């Protein structure tokens, strides 16, 4: 009986265990695998990343200079980053924010949506 009262009084004055989101936001770790990002200016559209992808999430066309990532299929396994000869692919530690429509992420060098996160 006495141990029950000591547990109750200890828990009464303790902070909540859960994180008080949105006041406290969880910062991702340095090695967290968030999303794939391509620096499109350096890309030579060789297609090695599309061949190595185990989930078939990349589509590359050399003749039309076209690079497309299906972000719903990507498993952030890092294979494309390792095999890219120009080292223009990176995996950042911020996850994609939620969107309002189910679109495929098309990488074009001029839109601000695709600027590199710092």
């Amino acid at each position, binding site marked *: 009986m006495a141990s029950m009262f000591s547990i109750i009084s200890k828990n009464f004055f303790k902070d909540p*265990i859960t994180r008080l989101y949105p006041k406290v936001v969880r910062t991702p*770790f340095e*090695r*967290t*695998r968030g999303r794939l990002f391509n620096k499109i200016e350096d890309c030579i559209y060789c297609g090695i990343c599309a061949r*190595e992808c*185990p*989930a078939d999430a990349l589509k590359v066309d050399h003749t039309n200079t076209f690079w497309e990532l299906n972000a719903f299929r990507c*498993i*952030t*396994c*890092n*294979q494309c980053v390792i095999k890219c000869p120009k080292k223009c692919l990176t995996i950042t530690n911020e996850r994609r924010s939620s969107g309002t429509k189910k679109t495929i992420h098309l990488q074009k060098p001029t839109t601000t949506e695709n600027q590199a996160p710092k």
Partner: protein
Amino acid sequence: MAKTIIPFGPQHPVLPEPLQLKLVMDEDTVVEAIPAIGYVHRGLEKLAELKDFNQTVYIVERVCGICSFMHSMAYVRGIEDIMGVVIPERAEFLRVIWAEIARIQSHLLYLGLIADGFGFESLFMETWKDREKILDVMEFTTGNRVIISANKVGGQTKDMTQEHFTAILKTMDEIEAKLKEYDKVFINNYSVKKRTVGIGYLSLEDVKEYAAVGPMARASGWAWDLRQTGYSAYKYLDFEPVVETGGDCHARNVVRIRETFQSIDLVRQAISKIPEGEIAVQVKGTPKGEVISRIEQPRGEAVYYIKGNGTKNLDRLRIRTPTFANIPTILKMLPGSQLPDVPIITLTIDPCISCTER
């Protein structure tokens, strides 16, 4: 008199994965149980024949969502055996460290589920709260919480620095302190003992006849742990298999709790003995030949049969998971038990049905 059949259906609040058991009842006692599996079949063994043998590492990891690291470890060890690749010692130690952390995470999940099985929700929340600390360590060192993609043919993809080791050791201390507080609840609490002692008894002869593996066998007195054979870096570590003789659900809980303490100790030993060096070697060529690779997963012994024919696609990949070997023991333990004991008996084998049907 006509017998009632109650479906312990594929969807049940207590089961982590879908499994159907049709229970043939005689008033309140189970007479027979008829299983039906196949609700999570994804055809991964066939998919492994269509992909490159390097890409198959990512497929094999996704066979299970709890024991994922050990699957990729068994596969990668098999391919390295066929191709005659010897990996550096540091890579072996890194594999053992991550494997034992995965084992701790799996046993904490089991403890939470069994507590939820007899309705003790606050104990379930306590164990999973500590499991979150382990998952944070996994994310800090590799990037992901459970499916970590740290293995590749020839070694590891990531290294760990002294900062990572310090974080792991700090988490191990915290987990050990918390576990010492509430393992007494599983072992000594009056209501928990009423629900687990004497329930689901499996004798040593039954273990040998039904070929049970893992903690199911060790809780009935069969002292066999595959890690004693000394594969990978286990030959440098010092430990004994955890054995109990009770044979009931209570003994299996005790075995898994003691194995968690043993894994914490193994992680500390491995971190103190890890050598410096490379983490991977270059691998050229394709596998040709066949091999059987065995590994001790949290639920028991898993067997991998890999056959390569010299091209970059494998000829055959066959996986025998421990839950597949333990399901016949449910069919032995259920007849004669009461209906409220059925969830506890089903959960005590630690079923991982997504492993059973790849």
